[in-house]
């Protein structure tokens, strides 16, 4: 049976949501091992087992949290050499991408990014990735020696606990992780405040683009979002312009979201953005340009001025809620 590994990123001992998605996919492909690194990682073992990990490698050295990529790459390279897995899957996250890319150069293996699916095919793997904003699906097969490294986009797989899951076998590692090579160290962490639900978990998202014209116009988005219990998101143009922090960004470089309802305001619908939101169940778009590509995705599109329509919409919502 194929050995399938999952790079199980944890935060304070909890697996990131994408890890449960990766495990759900991994266990359908082979005997699953999770690698959980950093302080508190052992607390994640039970959850990793519940989602299909038969074995978990745990190493709790703080270096995995405080040094970018290299300690994880060093350890993974050693473990991979020892166990020779066939496939290693990572979430397409900031850290996942750095670790997987470095590792591919270290091992001279195939790295396939932006994947939404992996299937077993003729004794090997076939990896599906969307290109051009998800309008085209590319299937790639590895041509290098195993393991094949795959970066899977968050929300590409629906996480579900395994039907029959026992407690995984745990291998606690304690070997030193200090590198002789210069490294990138985290000095401190800054959180940016966002009100309302988290973008990744929100059932409703109100998202703004360059069409809002100016950063102060995001106030009406915040107001609308508050009325709807929604999270606020933004396009790349908006975060690059500094109107909103990067943590609000939805799209290729930002977050992938799958809310029940996505309300795009002044967003043209560039591929960079749509790849991160086209999985929404229902899309509503308001934009003044009738040719905007977002209207090709929207279940309801309104061609008009967001500055006029959004304040009216806030009033409508308020009166219908009986305020």
């Amino acid at each position: 049976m194929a050995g399938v590994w999952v790079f199980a990123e944890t935060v304070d001992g909890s697996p990131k949501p994408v890890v449960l998605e990766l495990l759900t996919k991994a266990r359908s492909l082979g005997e699953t091992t999770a690698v959980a690194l950093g302080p508190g990682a052992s607390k994640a073992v039970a959850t990793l087992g519940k989602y299909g990990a038969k074995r978990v490698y745990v190493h709790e050295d703080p270096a995995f949290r405080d040094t970018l990529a290299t300690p994880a790459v060093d350890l993974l390279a050693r473990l991979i050499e020892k166990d020779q897995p066939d496939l290693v899957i990572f979430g397409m996250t900031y850290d996942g991408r750095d670790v997987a890319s470095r590792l591919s150069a270290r091992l001279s293996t195939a790295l396939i990014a932006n994947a939404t699916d992996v299937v077993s095919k003729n004794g090997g793997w076939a990896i599906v990735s969307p290109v051009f904003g998800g309008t085209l699906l590319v299937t790639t097969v590895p041509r290098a020696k195993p393991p094949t490294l795959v970066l899977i986009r968050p929300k590409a797989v629906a996480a579900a606990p395994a039907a029959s899951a026992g407690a995984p076998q745990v291998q606690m590692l304690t070997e030193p992780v200090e590198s002789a090579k210069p490294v990138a160290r985290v000095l401190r962490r800054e959180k940016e405040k966002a009100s309302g639900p988290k973008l990744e978990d929100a059932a409703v998202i109100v998202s703004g683009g360059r069409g809002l014209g100016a950063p102060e116009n995001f106030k009406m988005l915040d107001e609308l979002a508050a009325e709807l219990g929604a999270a606020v998101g933004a396009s790349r143009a908006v975060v690059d312009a500094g109107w909103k922090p990067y943590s609000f960004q939805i799209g290729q470089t930002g977050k992938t979201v799958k809310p029940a309802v996505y309300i795009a305001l002044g967003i043209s619908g560039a591929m960079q953005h749509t790849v991160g939101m086209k999985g929404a169940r229902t899309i509503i778009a308001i934009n003044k340009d009738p040719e905007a590509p977002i209207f090709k995705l929207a279940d309801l599109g309104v061609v008009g001025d967001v500055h006029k329509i959004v304040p009216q919409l806030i009033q409508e919502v308020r009166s219908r809620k009986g305020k």
Partner: protein
Amino acid sequence: MNVLVCVKQIPDPNAPGKLDPQTRRLVRDGVDLVLDPGDEHAVEAGLQLVEKDGGEATIISMGPPRALEAIRRALAMGAHRGILITDPGLENSDALSTARAIAAAITGQGYDLIICGTESTDGSSGAVPAQLAELLGLPLLSFAKKLEVSDGKAVIDRQTDDGYDVVEAPLPVVVTVTGGINEARYPALRGIMQAKNKEVKHVGLGDLGLDGKAGKLALTQEVVDLTPAEARKAGEVVEDKGEGAKRVADFLQELKVI
């Protein structure tokens, strides 16, 4: 301080991209090719560093001969010299081959910083910078929305899911920058004229000494199939004649959001 900036020439991202169903490669004929807009921020970041501390900014790119135009654009912005890695044997290279070719082309040149965009706008895998760092044995400061260099160290604000981390590494270092790091300058006419006379070194596969480790002979993967994704059906599009907000509110009520 000497800075190397890695850039890529891509089809104009404002025009829809096409793949050739036969060759499974990007259609380049009849498509406007531009310096990747993401890379303009990397060029700008490099220029700001050498303008402040002295030294030179070198632009490197790998691609067909016409990728020279992308290098010229960066030179017109103010970079000092260019390196174009071009060779029929490197056509269709994957990310790892590209990283190997760049690493080989700059061996022994002693750059303090190597700056890249976080990912290309067309391919979007974002693998090359980390692979390059690994091949060169350097730390990588990735997803920088702010970069400061002093006392032999680089410090960045690195984008995270809920804010940013302040991360430090000693020089030499590879840095990837996001679009928000700066406002990229527009080349002035004088810069465009000067760029024509700036040196661009051409490097071929034979110069790299990679011995089958890059290009066609070293592909780690192959695209075997292309299929159109199931398209989302466009719904109703209405023009706002004063009733737009009501229509949206009705729909939200149908969806039980209100």
